[in-house]
């Protein structure tokens, strides 16, 4: 199975990605994760303002097969959520690194990014799965 990756993103062991966009970070789940979930039918997005803690579950994604928690790859406050997913949750499947993003976060500690995997390490992780 060939998965898509994003060169600019950093990755968590639990298959979330985070990518800096100006001062904020964009967070989503990886192509590998969406593929394992299969068709996404609901994203239980957190409210704007909710403070995420690295490695804690902050939302649930439901697919036709399962309901899985999404873990925060970084800590910080949610500044925006992808409202398009309310009507079109399938964007998570179609474009996990683009239109299928989940939330934007104002990082509370930029150094946390260093603890995440880069593309090469994450690709290696996925290949072992």
């Amino acid at each position, binding site marked *: 199975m060939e998965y898509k990756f994003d060169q600019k993103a950093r990755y968590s062991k639990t298959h979330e990605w985070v990518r800096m966009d100006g001062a904020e970070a964009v967070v989503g789940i990886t192509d590998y994760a969406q593929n394992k979930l299969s068709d996404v039918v609901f994203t239980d997005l957190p*409210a704007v303002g*909710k403070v995420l803690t690295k490695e804690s579950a902050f939302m649930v994604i439901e697919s036709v097969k399962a*309901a899985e928690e999404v873990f925060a790859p970084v800590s910080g406050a949610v500044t925006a959520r992808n409202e398009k997913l309310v009507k079109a949750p399938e964007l998570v499947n179609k474009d996990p690194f683009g239109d299928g993003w989940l939330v934007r976060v104002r990082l509370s500690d930029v150094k946390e990014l260093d603890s995440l995997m880069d593309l090469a390490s994450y690709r290696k992780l996925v290949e072992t799965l």
Partner: protein
Amino acid sequence: MSFIPNTDADRAHMLSAIGVASTAELFHDVPKDFRFPRLDLPAALSEHEVLGQLDALSRLNAQGPQTPSFLGAGAYNHFIPAVVDAMVSRSEFATAYTPYQPEVSQGTLQAIFEYQSMIARLTGMEISNASHYDGATSTAEAVIMALNVAQREKKRVLLSAGVHPQYRAVVRTYTQGMGLTVTGDESTSIGFDQLGDLCDESTACVVVQYPDFLGRVAEPAQLSGLAKRVHACGALLVVVANPVALGLLVPPGEMGADVVAGEGQALGNHLSFGGPYLGFFAFRRDHIRKSSGRIAGETVDQDGRRSYVFTLSTREQHIRREKATSNICTNQSLNALTAAVYLTALGPRGLRRVAELCWHKAHYLASRVGSLSGYSVTKGEFFHEFAVRCPRPVSRINARLFEKHGIVGGYDLGADYPELRDAMLLCCTEVTTKEQIDRLVAALEDCRNA
């Protein structure tokens, strides 16, 4: 004789696999005295003798039109057309369960779908689930739905004192351990305005009843006004409703309710000593992913023929595993079917006629009781129940009504509402006759002095 599918050889094999000599040994942790206690039972009777005993017992019941009952308080004595029991007694329908392999049970799914459609229309909501156990559990599920809509971040639940006391107790039982503050029902003097004042950003939902437990019917403008204030706080408005009253009253969905829940017994289900009943549960599409229970839907198969499917069961453990927020995987299918057949038999006009008869009879009773000295009927609009302040303790009045006059009196409100000590909740339905009402009025007059 009990049927045990395992052969002796099977059992010996299983016992040896776990290293136990006999089945009895599996019970050795149960203290010996309790293992096979002596049951002091009388000698067995023949079937014929048992029937005779039960028949004799049943004759001790006060029943039928010769013992009129004015007891309501959540369970209502309505006429049930014969077609209802005839339809629901068909063996194809005899299951309490929503099927686990739904597609092979098209008839069951269609019945559930039609029930849902009728409940949605009656309540003025977009979606109904396949039903819950009873009014109390569907009310509690509505509260849990509101907590989930708020992603469990809001910890306050406001209940009106007008919500059935037992439903409020079940809400508290269901939500214990969630760290919630459940409040607002300390007194019947807390009206919609005060509930609106109490509602804040930390409030997940406000629950009111319509007509309320005391039979009172809020003005549509009051309910819509409350809905606006509740929504302004980002909370949900849960309306517990009487479905028969909805045959006549403005549906809660038209007044801003987010969830309409309640007891469906009044729709063609027998009183049966308190159950089994069914809880109905209807809501707006926005929150469908947080809804409880199961939803059947209509679709077409690959040849374009109409067919039915299980569309959704979003909160259950077979989908969500340990993240399930409802452990209810069953519904009250047979009772829901009963409600659907009843509603079909009556139609919207028939249901409205039933509701009108209930209203008129209760109002006739209220006007008669209100003119008795010593009794006072509480003011305000009501449907088919109303509170009456009595000159003597309700328990004593009820005892005399039953023993001397052969009448089952009203519900004693004092235990649930200290401010309504010596007040009784009286109910009339379409089966109550004028003669019965006049008998009750004369008997109440007699009870005043006795």
